[in-house]
C-alpha cells in the first residue's frame, strides 16, 4: 500500500479528472470499492489489473455510463453531479472503445467528422436551409478531420468504409475520431489489443507524443506497453485500488506482485520477447 500514499509527489500539473471514494455494486457484487484516483495534465496513467478487477467499470464511471453508488467525480476540481456520456466531449474528454464502435455505414472521413462535432455550432435551421455559415463550418470540420487522419498516416483511406479496412487501420480511425475532439483527457480502452509488436511500439510513441497536448488514461493488458508508456500506474484487484505509483514502484509493490504482476514480470524478464507471453 505504500505506493498509494506516495502518489502526491508524482503529480506535477493541474488535476483534471478525479474520482473520490467511488463504489459501484451490481446486485451483491462490488465491482468498485472506494476507489480514489486522479489524473493531472500531461500525464499518462495506466490502469491495470487482472480480468474482472473493475477496470472497465472504472472507465464507465469516468464516462457517465455507470453512475457510482457512492463517491464523487470531479473535473478540474469541480464536482460533476449528473455526468452523462454526451457531456464528455464538451468537457474535453474523449474515449476510444474496446470494440472500436466505428460507424459502419459512414465513410472514414465522416466517422472522424462526427468526432469533431464538438467544434461545430451550426443548428438545425442553418442545416435545413444550408445557410452559408453551415456550409463553411462543414468545410472547416472536414479539414480538421482530414488533418487528424493525416496525423495518423491514414488520410488516403478517408473515402473508404470502415468494414473494408484492416483491423489496425480501423483502430487508427477510432483513435483519430477521439483525437479530433482535441481533448484535455484521452481515455484509451485497450489500445494495443490486436496490434502487432511493431504497431504497438508505434502506438507507444504516439501516446508519449500526445502528452504536451493532453493527459492520457489507458486500460491495457500488454504489460510492456504500460510499463514503457505510463508515468503512473494504478492497479485494481477485485474492485479495490491496491497500488498507485510509477512503473518501478508498482513493479516492486508486494501486493501487486501477489495479485497480478508477479507472473507477467518474471515472464517478461525471462523471455526476450515479452509480447509472446501475453
Amino acid at each position, binding site marked *: 500500500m505504500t505506493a498509494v500514499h506516495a502518489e502526491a509527489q508524482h503529480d506535477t500539473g493541474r488535476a483534471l479528472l478525479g474520482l473520490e471514494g467511488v463504489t459501484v455494486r451490481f446486485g451483491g457484487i462490488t465491482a468498485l470499492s472506494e476507489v480514489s484516483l486522479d489524473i493531472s495534465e500531461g500525464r499518462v496513467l495506466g490502469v491495470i489489473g487482472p480480468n474482472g478487477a473493475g477496470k472497465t467499470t472504472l472507465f464507465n464511471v469516468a464516462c457517465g455510463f455507470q453512475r457510482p453508488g457512492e463517491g464523487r467525480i470531479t473535473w478540474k476540481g469541480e464536482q460533476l453531479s449528473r455526468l452523462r456520456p454526451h457531456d464528455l*466531449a464538451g468537457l474535453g474528454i474523449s474515449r476510444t472503445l474496446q470494440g472500436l*464502435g466505428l460507424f459502419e*455505414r459512414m465513410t472514414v472521413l465522416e466517422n472522424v467528422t*462526427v468526432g469533431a462535432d464538438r467544434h461545430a455550432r451550426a443548428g*438545425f435551421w442553418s442545416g435545413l436551409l*444550408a445557410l*452559408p455559415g453551415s456550409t463553411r463550418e462543414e468545410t472547416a470540420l472536414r479539414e480538421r478531420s482530414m488533418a487528424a487522419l493525416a496525423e495518423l498516416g491514414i488520410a488516403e483511406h478517408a473515402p473508404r*468504409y470502415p468494414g473494408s479496412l*484492416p483491423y489496425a487501420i480501423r483502430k487508427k480511425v477510432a483513435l483519430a475520431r477521439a483525437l479530433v475532439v482535441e481533448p484535455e483527457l484521452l481515455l484509451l480502452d485497450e489500445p494495443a*489489443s490486436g496490434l502487432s509488436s511493431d504497431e504497438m511500439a508505434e502506438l507507444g510513441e504516439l501516446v508519449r507524443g500526445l502528452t504536451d497536448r493532453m493527459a492520457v488514461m489507458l486500460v491495457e493488458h500488454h504489460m510492456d506497453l504500460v510499463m514503457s508508456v505510463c508515468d503512473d500506474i494504478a492497479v485494481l484487484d477485485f474492485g479495490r485500488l491496491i497500488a498507485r505509483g510509477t512503473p518501478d514502484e508498482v513493479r516492486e509493490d508486494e501486493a501487486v506482485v501477489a495479485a497480478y504482476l508477479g507472473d507477467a514480470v518474471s515472464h517478461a524478464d525471462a523471455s526476450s520477447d515479452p509480447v509472446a507471453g501475453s
Partner: protein
Amino acid sequence: MQQPQALRRVTDHTLGRHLVVGAVGVVVVVALMSFLGSFRVSQLASFSYLAIAAAGLTVLTGLNGQLSLGHGAFMAIGAYTAAVLQRSDSGLPVVVVLLGAVVVATLVGAVVGMAAARLHGPYLAGATLALAIAVPGLAIFWSDLLGGEQGLTVPLPEVPGWFADAVFFLTATDPSSSRYVAYLAGVALVLVLVLLANVSSSRVGRRWKAVRDDEVAAQLAGIDLGRARVLAFVVSAACAGLAGGLMAFVVRLTAPSGFTLTLSLTLVTAIVLGGLGSLAGALIGAALLTFLPQLATGLGGDLGLTDVQAAELAPLVYGVVMVLVILLAPGGLVGTVRMRQARRAALRAAAAAPAPQHDAPPSSERERSS
C-alpha cells in the same frame, strides 16, 4: 465531364447544388403539370404526396434507424387539419392551410417522438403500428367535428389570379382547381426534397447517422441520443403532415378509410423498394407504387385479358417486383447501385495501392472486435 467554372463554383456549395437540382425539378413539374392530361396530372399529384411522406420516412428509418409503421397516422392528422381549416369558410390561402397541417403533425410528432426515442426495434414498430390503427379511430370518436365514418369532403381551393394568368401565358388554357392543387403538390415535393437533402448532408444528418450506427460512440462524440431521435421523428412527421394536407386537396375527401394500415405499410414498402435512407430511392419507390398498378392493368388489357383479370394483374406484378427487389437488390434499388459503385471504387483503390501488409492481426482479435 468538365463542368464550366461558374457552375462548379455553385455546385461546390451544398445550397447551390441542391438549388440547381431543385430549380430543374420545378421546371419539370411545371412542364408535366401544364401539358399532361388531367388523369395523368391527378396521378402525378398522388405520386407527389406519397413521395413527400416516403421521403420523410426514409430520413427517419434510413438515416436515423427508427422504423415507423405508423406514418399514415401523421398523414391522417395533416389531412384532417387541412380539411377542417379548409371547410371553416375562413378563406385561408391553401398554403396557410397546408402550413397548419404541417404544424399540427409536427406537434403530435414531437410528443410521439419523445416516446419513440425510448423504444427500440420491434417495440418502436409495435407502438407506431398502434398509432396507425388508433388515429383514424379518433375521427369516428369525434364525429361531429371530423365527420365520422363518412369523413369530410374538402372544398376545392380557388385558383389565385396570378397563377391562372401564368398558366394561361404558358399553355393558353385556364387551369382548373385540381390542376392548381397538382402544381402545389409537385412544387411542395421539390421543396421538401431540397430541404431534406440539405439536412441530410448537414451536421444534423451526420449526427442522425452516427446515432443509427453506434449509440455508445455517438454519445461519446457529444450527441444526445434522445434529442437526435426526437428531431428526426419531428422532421419526418412534418413531412407526413404536409403529405396528408396535400392528400386532402387531391382526394377531396378525408375519411378514416383513406388512412388504413395499408397506407402506412405502403410508405414502408416504397422506401424499402427504393433503398433506405436515399431520397432518390423514396422517389422511385413512390413512383413504382403509384404507376405500377395502372401500368400492369393497362398491359393486361392490351394482352387481351378481361377487365377483372387485368385488375388482378396489378397486385401480382406488385408482389413479383417486391420479391425480385428483395432477392436481387436487398439494399433497395438505389442502395444496390451505390453498393456496386463503392465496391468498384474499393477494387480500383486496391489495384492502385502497393502490396498488402503482412502483419495482419490474429483472426481471433478481429472477431472479437466486430
